[in-house]
């Protein structure tokens, strides 16, 4: 099936209009799939349009008014995507929320958006909404998808989604004209969605994105990567995240490709393998996790297999990226790569679920060069993009054939970029958000009168290629006591490229030297411990094990060596480090839901550790409050060791001075 040709002038100006167009042109093509009861169930565009219309009629029947907000809290399921489109049809604004947020986080967003309707995935979400109802008094109706356990609830203002649809179907005659009028009233300036930014500082802000933002962005980027109705994506990232909205709603509606929803979050990897998406997006940690798994399994394999794997990965490393970029490759290398493809790469890609991948993106954090090269050498067209919620994701992205691990690519189609004097990156694009909901001050301070938006990231254009390179968050880039540049993220990323290190927090702004707090990766270090007969009873014990410390120390030293090579940033070498006794966790507020470290929170919470890192002591006793998954609090106690690491170049002087 060919991609629907866009005829200028008569372009659909809303997602419901695109849905109608898809039902018309691609009626028999699969629109949504979901694995349930062990089988992939699918809906064509025509069927999906019918389901969505029934749901919209049902919501209308319950009194949904234009301009209302409809919160959607649940995992990626067709029904939840339908609920968002159905809300749009009624002239309302969908507001997807992070489903793993605890009740109090949810209370703020529900209260701030003033949602009248809430779509809940299951009983757990309903319970959370009921718990925070006092903070969000405007909630009138709860609609739930999964009926399990819901029988005993007071149903005076609560309905099952299927029942809402049934009532909608029954009311089709009566409410149909009203619904059609509301759909016809939608245009480019109507709000398409409101998404709350995770916010590394302060309260989340509601980013209002119009149909223009979403549809123009979807169109530009779909054309950039030549996406068609035959593509498949796996929708598994949080629905509250702008990326999922662009991929699974915007681009899906624009091109008409198929959105596949996993059976449950735990089966994501199996479902990925079964679907074999052609267009795939994942944050670096997913790729890192998969690579770690592959390496762990290879360590356990027989000697011949290990040799075969190493040999052909060597070939792939040499030849793969060149082949992918369309550069000339010798005949012998081509044959060796072809053989490797039969023996190693093909089966490996199949195991990972990447056999059919045409375009893959990673973003959100920097990806380790080794990890990036690993996937590209297998022939997977993995690229990087740079974006944020306020831009409807896309600011820059890498064109085919110009892919490198240390840049984020060229401006996306329709995006203008400029770099301010302090290095901060500004952009202006059709995807630039309308406003922060009920927050004109923040809107004004972020977006100027000409539409330029500050990204908050510092970066520069690489001379020659014109690719953008991001150094760090602009506000995190600081100065050390002696005036040298301090860019923590730059060093943290280098540390995190080691599979043993899950998270790193580098400290040093305004200080004499830099130090680091690290998290080990339990699966990687645990496996290593098992193979080396190191017994441990808990995460804490493993993290504090002398041999683990020794291994981590080697990594830090290697990072120092590589940081020392960069003249501008050589001051950021790590002089002292410790391994934390607990994993940094969004539930404890140490990270955002998208797993970005919150520096201020960490500096405050672990103030005693920071002090110890700078007062020269070799160990420190600490007590830390932790929050369990069910919201209860507890305390863990530990004595942490602090180790010194050699630094390279100019730095040793200061280390002596500090001790």
């Amino acid at each position, binding site marked *: 099936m060919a991609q629907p040709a866009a005829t200028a002038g008569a372009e659909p100006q809303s997602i419901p209009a695109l849905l109608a167009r898809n039902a018309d042109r691609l009626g028999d093509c699969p629109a949504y799939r979901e694995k*349930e*009861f*062990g089988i992939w169930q699918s809906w064509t565009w025509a069927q999906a349009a019918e389901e969505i219309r029934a749901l919209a009629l049902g919501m209308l029947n319950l009194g949904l008014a234009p301009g209302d907000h409809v919160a959607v809290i649940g995992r990626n399921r067709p029904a939840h995507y339908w609920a968002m489109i159905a809300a749009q049809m009624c002239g309302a604004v969908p507001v997807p929320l992070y489903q793993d947020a605890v009740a109090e986080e949810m209370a703020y967003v529900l209260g701030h958006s003033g949602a009248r309707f809430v779509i809940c995935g299951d009983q757990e979400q309903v319970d959370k909404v009921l718990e925070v109802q006092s903070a969000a008094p405007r909630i009138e109706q709860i609609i739930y998808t999964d009926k*399990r356990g819901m029988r005993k609830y007071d149903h005076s203002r609560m309905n099952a989604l299927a029942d809402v649809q049934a009532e909608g179907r029954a009311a089709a005659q009566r409410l149909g004209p009203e619904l059609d009028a509301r759909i016809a009233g939608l245009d480019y300036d109507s709000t398409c969605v409101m998404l709350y930014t995770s916010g590394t500082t302060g309260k989340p802000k509601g980013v209002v994105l119009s149909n223009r933002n979403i549809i123009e962005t979807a169109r530009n980027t779909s054309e950039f990567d030549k996406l068609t109705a035959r593509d498949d994506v796996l929708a598994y990232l949080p629905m509250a995240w702008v990326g999922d909205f662009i991929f699974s709603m915007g681009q899906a509606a624009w091109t008409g490709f198929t959105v596949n929803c996993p059976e*449950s979050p735990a*089966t994501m990897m*199996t479902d990925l393998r079964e679907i074999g998406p052609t267009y795939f997006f994942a944050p670096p940690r997913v790729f890192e996790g998969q690579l770690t798994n592959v390496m762990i399994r290879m360590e356990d394999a027989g000697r011949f297999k290990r040799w075969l794997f190493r040999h052909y990965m060597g070939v792939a490393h040499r030849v793969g990226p060149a082949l992918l970029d369309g550069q000339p490759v010798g005949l012998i290398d081509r044959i060796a790569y072809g053989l490797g493809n039969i023996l190693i790469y093909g089966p490996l890609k199949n195991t990972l679920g990447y056999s059919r991948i045409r375009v893959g993106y990673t973003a959100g954090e920097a990806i380790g060069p080794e990890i990036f090269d690993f996937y590209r050498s297998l022939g997977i067209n993995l690229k990087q993009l740079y974006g944020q919620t306020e831009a409807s994701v896309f600011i820059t992205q890498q064109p085919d054939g110009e892919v490198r691990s240390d840049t984020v690519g060229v401006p996306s189609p329709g995006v203008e970029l400029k770099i301010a004097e302090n290095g901060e990156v500004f952009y202006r694009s059709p995807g630039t958000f309308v406003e922060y909901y009920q927050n004109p001050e923040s809107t004004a301070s972020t977006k100027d009168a000409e539409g330029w938006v500050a990204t908050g990231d510092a970066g520069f254009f690489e001379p020659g290629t014109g690719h953008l390179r991001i150094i760090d968050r602009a506000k995190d880039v600081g100065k050390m006591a002696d005036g040298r540049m301090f860019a923590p993220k730059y060093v943290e990323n280098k540390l995190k490229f080691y599979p043993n290190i899950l998270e790193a927090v580098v400290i040093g702004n305004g200080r004499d030297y830099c130090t680091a707090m690290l998290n080990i990766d339990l699966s990687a270090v645990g496996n290593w411990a098992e193979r080396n007969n190191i017994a441990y009873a808990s995460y804490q014990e493993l993290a504090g094990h002398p041999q683990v410390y020794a291994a981590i120390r080697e990594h830090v030293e290697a990072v120092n060596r590589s940081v020392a090579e960069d003249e501008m940033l050589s001051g950021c070498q790590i002089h002292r480090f410790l391994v934390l006794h607990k994993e940094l966790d969004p539930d404890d507020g140490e990270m955002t839901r998208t797993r970005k470290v919150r520096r201020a929170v960490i500096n405050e919470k672990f103030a005693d550790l920071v002090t110890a890192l700078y007062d020269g002591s070799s160990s420190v006793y600490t007590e830390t409050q932790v929050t369990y*998954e069910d919201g209860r609090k507890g305390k863990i106690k530990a004595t942490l060791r602090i180790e010194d690491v050699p630094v390279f170049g100019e730095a040793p002087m200061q280390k002596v001075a500090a001790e």
Partner: protein
Amino acid sequence: MLDQTEGYTTADGRQIGPVLLDLRGITLRFGGVEAIKNISFDIRQGEIRAIIGPNGAGKSSMLNVISGFYVPQDGEVWFRGHKRGPMKPYEVARLGIARTFQNIALFDGMSVLDNIMTGRLNKMKSGFISQAIWWGRAEAEEIANREQVERIIDFLEIQNIRKTPVGRLPYGLKKRVELARALAAEPRLLLLDEPMAGMNVEEKEDMSRFILDVNDEFGTTIALIEHDMGVVMDLSDRVVVMDYGRKIGDGTPAEVRGNQEVIDAYLGVSHD
């Protein structure tokens, strides 16, 4: 002993029906040892009934009497208004009684899915040959049964381990698979022998929720043995307390908790 009233309503508003299983004067001896001494109690339709007691009190023997594995020397077992004679375990299973075991009894080498499918064995009517050549009734039957099993997998949230061999699973999940297998038989009466033994707090909470959900969703009557008093008091509607083969208490959790004999049995007083 036999109470013919129509049942009662629980504190959380569940309707408990008439007597499903009635045990009258059960005595079970192993040689000279009397494991169960003249015990009578009933289990009502839709109820969660706990049997508690110190180690060696005869709880598991009691469960084995209900499941038909042991035949008591004295006493009568009435199920759904009929007196039950000595039966083979599979005949009891056909009556609608399923159980899990204190020491997990799954097929380690088989996948989770296959293990649960064995719970459907009594529902399959096609013959050995038909099943072996996968033709005719066998195929349709397997599809129907598989669908039922998939619903249970979904219900117990074990989709991610569907194809994993049971031997590779951690203990808490094995327990859940055992529950799934018992549920696959669509029992009227589900017997759980220490469903939470050896679990950590989180696993216990999960299991408790599943037990309540099973009762709520399928209306299954549940009899369970459990040592964790907190769990028993939270879950069950009525509790039987046993000590040295005797019944020393029977009633709601609150009643049982206030019973002096029960307190003595648990805190330990000299038996002389």
